[in-house]
């Protein structure tokens, strides 16, 4: 009896709920929709004092300057060159300090939400002008610095090896740091996946690993740019890996994709899946690296921002919460250092696995006898 009463009650409540929802839908006019939109846009400003969204995205997105701290006298930044090309206006290059952190217009350009836009004489944004932003933004500068550091370290180590140090005698200095890493990539990543043809792809795998690693590590220092958490960066790496994998595919590889060795009925499903698989594997590489690094940076900034969000409510809670927040942040920071290494390793490992799948030869029974004889 009680169950039936409860059920009737639930039906009644649900009915009232449904009627309440459906009635206003018919009465709604378009201008109410606009009202919601502006209210939704105004909501973040209501936070007043500390805009968490602006701080977080200011840190993880690209920008035209290195930003360190906001002092009462103004932000402390290193401005970077802005290089613009517009078909109507030609080339323009100047330092981003001319933009005065988004408040000033210079040479007909202005910073709007971090993007350089062309403005007319009266100051309004020129929607139709096409502006190609070729600036040295902070991501670009950090990538170049990382590249210079990498090339310097690795070339000096290579020179030492060429002169015999570490070959006929014990390795010295930086060789001790680099050699275990390279041997690790060779023995755990290249050889197991690529077999005896690993030497052809080994330089590429090492480049991928060291480049991602050094950009991950530099990005962890406060004040630097979030290079590997930028989708454009990871897309380029993924596309290059895709090109390497696809161009090294042999007949066996393509045969498996277009004619997989499965029963005839399943082939209709398997062939589209395999064709999609050619693309989803690099896409997974791209999104994995991007999401891991971006999420890590956002978590660290969010935990620190919590102090200020609580501080807005009351100064006492802000101060009291800071030890907790800093403890959490340190913990997550150490995990992020680990993630920096792991993600570089995983990108390299999976690229090696996919290349290995592409260059795989057909198994003959002689190979097994050969392997058995070796052991």
């Amino acid at each position: 009896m009680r169950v039936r009463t409860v059920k009737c009650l639930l039906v009644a409540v649900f009915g009232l709920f449904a009627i309440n929802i459906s009635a206003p839908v018919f009465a709604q006019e378009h201008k109410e929709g606009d009202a919601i939109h502006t209210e939704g846009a105004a909501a973040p400003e209501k936070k007043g004092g500390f805009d968490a969204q602006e701080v977080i995205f200011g840190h993880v997105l690209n920008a035209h300057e290195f930003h360190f701290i906001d002092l009462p006298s103004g932000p402390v930044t290193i401005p970077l060159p802005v290089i613009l090309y517009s078909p109507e206006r030609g080339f323009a290059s100047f330092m981003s300090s001319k933009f005065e952190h988004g408040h000033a217009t210079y040479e007909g350009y202005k910073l709007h939400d971090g993007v350089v836009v062309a403005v007319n004489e009266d100051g309004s944004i020129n929607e139709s002008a096409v502006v190609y932003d070729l600036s040295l933004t902070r991501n670009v500068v950090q990538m170049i610095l990382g590249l210079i550091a990498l090339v310097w370290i690795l070339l000096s180590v290579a020179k030492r090896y060429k002169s015999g140090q570490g070959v006929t005698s014990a390795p010295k200095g930086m060789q001790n740091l680099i050699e275990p890493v390279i041997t690790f990539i060779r023995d755990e990543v290249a050889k197991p996946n690529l077999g005896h043809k690993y030497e052809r792809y080994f330089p590429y795998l090492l480049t991928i690993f060291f480049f991602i690693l050094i950009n991950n590590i530099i990005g962890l220092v406060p004040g630097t740019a979030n290079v590997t958490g930028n989708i454009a960066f990871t897309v380029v790496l993924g596309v290059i890996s895709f090109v390497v994998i696809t161009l090294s595919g042999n007949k066996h590889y393509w045969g498996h994709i277009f004619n997989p060795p499965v029963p005839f009925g399943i082939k209709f499903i398997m062939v589209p899946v395999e064709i999609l698989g050619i693309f989803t594997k690099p896409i997974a590489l791209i999104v994995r690296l991007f999401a891991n690094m971006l999420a890590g940076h956002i978590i660290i900034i969010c935990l620190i921002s919590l102090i200020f969000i609580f501080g807005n409510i009351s100064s006492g809670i802000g101060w009291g919460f800071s030890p907790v927040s800093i403890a959490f942040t340190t913990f997550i920071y150490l995990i992020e250092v680990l993630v920096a290494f792991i993600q570089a390793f995983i990108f390299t490992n999976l690229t090696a696995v996919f290349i290995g799948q592409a260059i795989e030869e057909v198994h003959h029974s002689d190979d097994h006898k050969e392997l058995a004889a070796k052991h």
Partner: protein
Amino acid sequence: MELLTVLLDGTANAGGAIGAGLAAIGAGIGIGQIGKGAVEAIARQPEAVNDIRANMILTAAFVEGVALFAVIAGILAMFV
């Protein structure tokens, strides 16, 4: 304000956040299984600790990658 407009106002944000939360549950369960398997394997064969630890960390990174795919989908729901 109409109830429906109130409810629809933040649906995209709610959807994104709920999606990310579900992804966190998935990652928690997945990495928990990895940890369980790894610890049991170490208990069975303590001298293989280093191999097992390396494989555990590698597999955990894969599972975390999948969870972060869902987080990206949530972020896309919020902003696109």
